[in-house]
């Protein structure tokens, strides 16, 4: 709540200085209440949206990393506690399954002149969300080390393994690779990346039945396991933040890091200018001769709650459109990989954009995927530590997943 108050205050202060902003916002009345995840690029958007506060309009913002856990109950009540929920392709599913999202077709028609067609998230005929930024894990590499070895930056996982072997045999680093393999959410996300790159599916078409225990699934796990031979032995405890520390401490030569964290690695406050300057960004690698990069594409966007008055919905949509207007992206080019019109992407956004351009697939927006992700997170660590076979691990994942979806009434 404190954060919300401060953000609102900042917003209020901004309104004082940005006289034209109020005019652009053009909201006469209504209440805007925003719930979202807490990271820099999201804050950039909500700070802008807060500037829409005026005598008739209130804007309240609550950004918290716990947003996933409160969004469903908070939007279920009438009127909903929040009018806007900032979501990503994974966290929108629970809202859709509980029917808490307002179709935006008429609002887009009325106020969405600045939107690009690919910003509209549709299920069937309904526009259910507006995306404004993209994200994906992609390669961060130490150009200086590659130069010393005289090799080109690797573009496939097979090449990465060769380069890692060279780095090791030259005695430069014992563990040149890193990935976010912390058991739980991160490990599952890495499995999803690799599995998409291997051309795998998660479910049998049109049903909740899992489709992991097959050749693609085994190949995925085997590639992940091979990579760990070149990772520090604690790989099952490494998160994205931890990996950033390792990389900036010069312990890692090649890693698969989140695009949204580029600024922290390359910016002036990274803490190690030498490494920052030597870093090469590249799209996510491919594997096993496939052309699809082994990375799931993520988008962040917003939805408007269903259980609120039309007036509040309209005000909320307008405030968010102001928050993600093309000007905002141009003023903050390094804050994120914006999917917004007229955005001239700087070099730091190229990792994500090229991964998308090479045809990477989106993280599945399916009601089953959350349960699948949870099962992957808990059941893969035994395999990663060599305690069971890939087939056994995949069988465990499927069994655990099925128990969860049965409880949720999604399968029988």
């Amino acid at each position: 709540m404190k954060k919300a108050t401060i953000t609102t205050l900042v917003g209020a202060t901004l309104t004082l200085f940005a006289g034209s902003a109020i005019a652009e916002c053009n909201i006469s009345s209504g209440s805007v209440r925003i719930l979202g995840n807490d990271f820099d690029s999201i804050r950039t958007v909500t700070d802008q949206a807060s500037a829409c506060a005026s005598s008739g309009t209130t804007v309240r913002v609550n950004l918290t990393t716990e947003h996933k856990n409160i969004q469903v109950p908070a939007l279920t009540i009438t009127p909903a506690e929040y009018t806007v929920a900032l979501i990503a392709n994974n966290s929108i599913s629970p809202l859709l399954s509980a029917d808490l999202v307002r179709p935006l077709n008429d609002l887009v028609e009325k106020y969405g002149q600045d939107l690009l067609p690919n910003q509209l998230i549709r299920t069937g005929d309904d526009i259910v969300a507006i995306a404004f930024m993209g994200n994906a894990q992609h390669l961060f590499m130490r150009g200086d080390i590659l130069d010393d070895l005289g090799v080109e930056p690797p573009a496939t996982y097979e090449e990465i393994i060769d380069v890692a072997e060279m780095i090791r045999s030259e005695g430069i680093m014992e563990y040149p690779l890193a990935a976010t393999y912390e058991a739980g959410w991160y490990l599952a996300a890495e499995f999803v990346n690799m599995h998409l790159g291997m051309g795998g599916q998660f479910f049998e078409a049109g049903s909740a039945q899992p489709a992991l225990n097959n050749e693609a699934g085994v190949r995925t796990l085997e590639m992940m396991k091979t990579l760990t031979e070149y990772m520090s032995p604690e790989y099952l405890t490494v998160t994205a933040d931890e990996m950033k520390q390792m990389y900036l401490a010069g312990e890692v030569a090649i890693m698969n890091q989140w695009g949204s964290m580029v600024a922290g690695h390359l910016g002036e406050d990274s803490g190690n200018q030498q490494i920052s300057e030597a870093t090469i960004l590249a799209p996510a690698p491919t594997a096993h001769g496939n052309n699809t990069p082994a990375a799931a594409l993520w988008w962040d966007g917003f939805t408007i709650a269903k259980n609120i008055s039309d007036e509040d919905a309209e005000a909320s949509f307008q405030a968010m459109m102001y928050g993600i207007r093309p000007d905002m992206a141009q003023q903050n080019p390094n804050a994120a990989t914006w999917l917004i019109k007229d955005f001239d992407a700087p070099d730091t956004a190229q990792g994500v954009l090229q991964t998308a351009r090479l045809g990477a697939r989106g993280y599945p927006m399916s009601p089953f995927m959350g349960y699948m992700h949870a099962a992957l997170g808990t059941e893969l660590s035994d395999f990663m530590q060599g305690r069971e076979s890939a087939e056994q691990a995949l069988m465990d994942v499927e069994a655990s997943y099925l128990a969860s979806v049965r409880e949720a009434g999604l399968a029988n």
Partner: protein
Amino acid sequence: MTHKTFFAFIFPSLLAMILFIALPIGSIVVQSLHVEHPRVLVEVENCGPFGCERETRVDTAATQALQEAQPMGQFNGLGTYFDRRHLATEEVSRIFSDNEGVADIARQMYNLPFYKALSFTLVYTFIVTPLGMALGFSIALAVNSIPRFLKGPIIFFSLLPMIVTPLVGSLILFWMINTQGVIGSNLQLLFDDPDLSLRASPLLTWVTLIVYGVWSMAPFSFVVFYAGLQTVPSDTLESAKIDGASRWERIRYVVIPHLIPLATFVALVQLMDNFRVFEPIVGFSAEANATSLSWNIFNDLRGQVDQQYSSAAATSVLTVFGVVVLLMPVLVRLWRDFNRKA
């Protein structure tokens, strides 16, 4: 006190206990017997910035009709308790009918989430409780025999592990045992093994968690035992001294028998606390190697984007059951003591 006065006296706390303890536990039991409605699924085309895919979606209108008809959800009996994430009866009977000896049974059982969590929880409880109590008792003895002016600061210092929030304490230790941290890099130096990492192998992770557990649990035993030491009759101690008993003999035959009832109480509290071990697993990112029952509940509720209430409720009920079983010997003992005195 008449029964009526007694009842009037105790009524407010009784009411609070029913409202805040009995009812929530009751609702958890009810929750664990239900699962969600079968949801009506339809296939749709989902489109986003990165193209379109045919995916399944919940038909919310049709599902809502079902939910309104039966707001509690679908009665599932003990189904959730017996599924793979909990007691896994089907899997367990298969393991027992098809295995390659005891080691194989243990390995296969450890592969099931509930038994994996249970095994760490029990090992942790049964090692940390006695060691924590022993450490607390030794600190109490040491503090009791130091000069008075030193006591204040040393007591404060010994209580620090209890004052520090468990999550923060374990995070601090986690960073210290990191291979770049002060403990981690010194261990590598000491054992001359650049690959040594307390976070990599299951065994070392368990050891780390247990050492952390003893460290954080000792202060409670210390405080209670230190208070107990002030009540040891000095006459008895002095006469033992005159009889030529050494310091160890005085502790063994005078102090310890005097403190036994206190030790039962401490054991009771510590068993309960340790059985609910949770924060260090999160703090040490130890999920890959060690999970506990409490962690399983947490993971069902907060792990991902969906909340699995029934699964979490079933694990909660099983945990309560476990605590009761665990405390049975201690409770029986207390009951006997009570009867003897009465």
